């Protein structure tokens, strides 16, 4: 496995679990969908509020992915296995 845990514990606090597990592409797409759906103005208020809250969480998730503290670089050996951190 090359994938280590994608996010630090602080970064996942507050966010709903399913949102915190999303990659940027899914989170961004979901955010766009939420905005588009909200903008139709056809949803009952209660559903709109739920959608709004989810949209805020999604945008937060996107922001965290975009401002990750530092690039993590790992070495891969001949079998494509993780061979540890790489110092540049």
């Amino acid at each position, binding site marked *: 496995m*090359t*994938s280590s845990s994608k996010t630090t514990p602080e970064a996942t606090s507050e966010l709903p679990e399913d949102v915190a597990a999303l990659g*940027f592409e899914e989170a*961004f797409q979901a955010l766009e969908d939420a*905005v588009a759906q*909200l903008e139709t*103005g056809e949803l009952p208020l209660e559903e709109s509020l739920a959608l709004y809250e989810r949209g805020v969480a999604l945008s937060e998730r996107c922001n965290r992915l*975009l401002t990750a503290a530092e690039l*993590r670089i790992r070495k*891969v050996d001949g079998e494509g296995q993780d061979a540890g951190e790489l110092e540049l």
Partner: protein
Amino acid sequence: MQIYTVCDLTTYVKALFDGDPELVDVWVQGEASNCRPAASGHWYWTLKDEEASLRCVMWRSQAAAQECLPEDGGAFLLHGSVSVYPAQGQYQLYVDHVEPVGVGDLYRQFEALKAKLEAEGLFDPERKRLLPAYPERIGIVTSTEAVALRDVCHVLARRWPSAEVSVAPTLVQGEGAPEMIVAALDAIGGAGVDVVILTRGGGSLEDLWAFNDERVARAIASCPVPVVAGVGHETDFTIADFVADTRAPTPSAAAELATPDAWELAQNVDELRERLGRQMRSQLETAVQELAYARRRLTRASPARTVAEGETALVNLGGRLQRSLVSRLRLARADLEGQRRRLAALSPPATLARGYAHVSRRRDGHPVRSTADVVAGEGIDVRVTDGGFGAVVEGQANLFPLEEDE
């Protein structure tokens, strides 16, 4: 023992070259590479064959006189003199004549392989895979020693820091480099990355040669994920560039092409969030307005209003009823009083009190209403208000009957 300065020794060696009759007038043939004019207009390049290489220089004035100038990969016959350039301690050929001798070997190999792979369809635009827009895992195949890796990682850290970067180290030039590049591509292809950056920095045609290897080309073509090739400089084209899904002019450019710009995306995210908030606010405002409107309608439609109106009407009616009853009563009472008075006025005692008298015949008590009821000499009883007395009828009195008032 004589001790030379570097300068003195170099001058001595240079004198040996310059005094050699063979070296001052020499023809030499080989493959040119790294051919480019300097800003000064002088030309510098390397002439080489399988075993050796020779630095060449041609002054601007000489270059201007040539019908043909050296090109990378081309084979050329050169004439000039061999001497030493003291400042760099290098011997080089000072060229005064350039002739092409057909296509150079490396260049021919390159063209042959390019034609072959092209015929196989390895360069077809339809084969090119789109790079993932938001790669979560990025693989890099390069030398861990090279500046190229630092350049690439620098760009990745700036543009797309959330990516997981896996590096498959390999030699990128020299003996064994093609085999290692193939192995590294296989390894990274199996490491679950979304995109592979195959890169190395600039170098001579020979330095980049591993990227013109058929095995490398086929490894790129069979890589399970899209490959971005960033080999050498803008002007360098290798077979790897042609077969890769995307060709980048430099290592940094390869990293840029492989990733989105986080800052740009952050703006998009901010804008979406702004729209989200705006939409929610407007929906809430609408809801509040609708509520207010509904409340007004409710108030208007409320039975309380009807009841209040009814009550008012009822009170009015009650008032009218009362007033009409009172006046009716008053009238009735006044009427009654009148009647009572009239009645009282007609009562026998009142009539007697006003001076009238009641006369009846003594013989039978019959009331006397007419002159015909009595005869002269007959006894009558006269009743007045405080008693009565008897009298005798004398005869007719000189009185006329009273007429009824109209």
